[in-house]
């Protein structure tokens, strides 16, 4: 509902997903490329179900996952609002995904003269940007335990379900975790075994189930900023 706040027409309640309400839901299979590095931003997507990974490819040809978008996330909004003319990363589906999509022009029209919509979009994009920065900073840390605990905290936030035992709902291999934290697969495996021995990871080894109480203690002890 539109109201007046000083001299601006503003929305009293605005949710970012409102922008996508009228659009068709489109299904994508697992492994579908949505954007290549260097692509221009033709569409902004809102995830209804499933997960999308953002990654780059190293000089050696290996894929490094930088970020994961989950249900309710809008991408690549951060790049769009930063003013990027082309994308710096690859975007592809990690699971089957359903998306609603709009053209950036619709977003611009919606923002025009509506400072609260702009503020809501900017705040969302800034929070995503902060998470990106935390993820990238964690790659440069020289402590494998810290890296894996920070990665688990990120995965819990983006794809976790359940308390106090939280299952990570996105399929992720040890190699993915190694690539996401800038470690070798061997170091990653060793850290996961250690975390399992102290009960921070529980359940069968083919699943990632995190004890949130122990995770919070580890985050505090290691001085990880989430």
């Amino acid at each position, binding site marked *: 509902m539109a109201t007046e706040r*000083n001299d*601006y027409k503003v929305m009293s309640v605005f949710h970012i997903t409102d922008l996508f309400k009228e659009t068709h839901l489109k299904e994508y299979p697992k492994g579908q490329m949505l954007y290549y590095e260097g692509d221009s931003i033709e569409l902004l997507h809102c995830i209804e179900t499933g997960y999308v990974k953002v990654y780059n490819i190293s000089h050696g040809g290996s894929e490094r996952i930088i970020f994961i978008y989950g249900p309710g996330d809008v991408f690549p909004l*951060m790049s769009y*609002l*930063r*003013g990027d003319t082309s994308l710096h990363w690859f975007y592809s589906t990690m699971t089957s995904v359903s998306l609603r999509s709009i053209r950036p022009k619709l977003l*611009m029209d919606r*923002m*025009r*003269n*509506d*400072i609260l*919509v*702009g*503020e809501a*979009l*900017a705040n969302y*994009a*800034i929070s995503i*940007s*902060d998470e990106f*920065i935390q993820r990238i900073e964690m790659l440069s840390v020289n402590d494998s335990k810290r890296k894996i605990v920070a990665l688990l905290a990120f995965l819990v936030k983006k794809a976790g379900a359940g308390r106090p035992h939280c299952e990570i709902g996105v399929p992720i291999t040890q190699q993915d975790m190694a690539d996401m934290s800038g470690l070798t697969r061997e170091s990653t495996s060793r850290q996961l075994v250690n975390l399992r021995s102290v009960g921070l990871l529980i359940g069968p080894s083919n699943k990632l189930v995190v004890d949130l109480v122990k995770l919070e203690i580890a985050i505090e002890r290691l001085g990880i900023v989430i």
Partner: protein
Amino acid sequence: MAKNIKTKNKPVFILVSVSKVTSFGWAAQKAAVMAMREVSYDRVAIYGPISLQILLNTLSHVADSYNEVRAFSNRIETLEWLRREMITK
């Protein structure tokens, strides 16, 4: 100052650093939108931390001034855009 320059029929290109700005609340956002709409300029290029880059580019959309006001994350990029705009203007 911008108005004075404009009265002399000269273009107004403004370079702004917000690198030391630590908070940007509602009043500042509103003032920024007002300034984008009302100040007489040709182009404004702003640089600062990424959070302000996102916020200011969003506000320039709100003010319908995105072609004239852009925010960047570093000074070099900012100057490059400003130079390009000066040439095409």
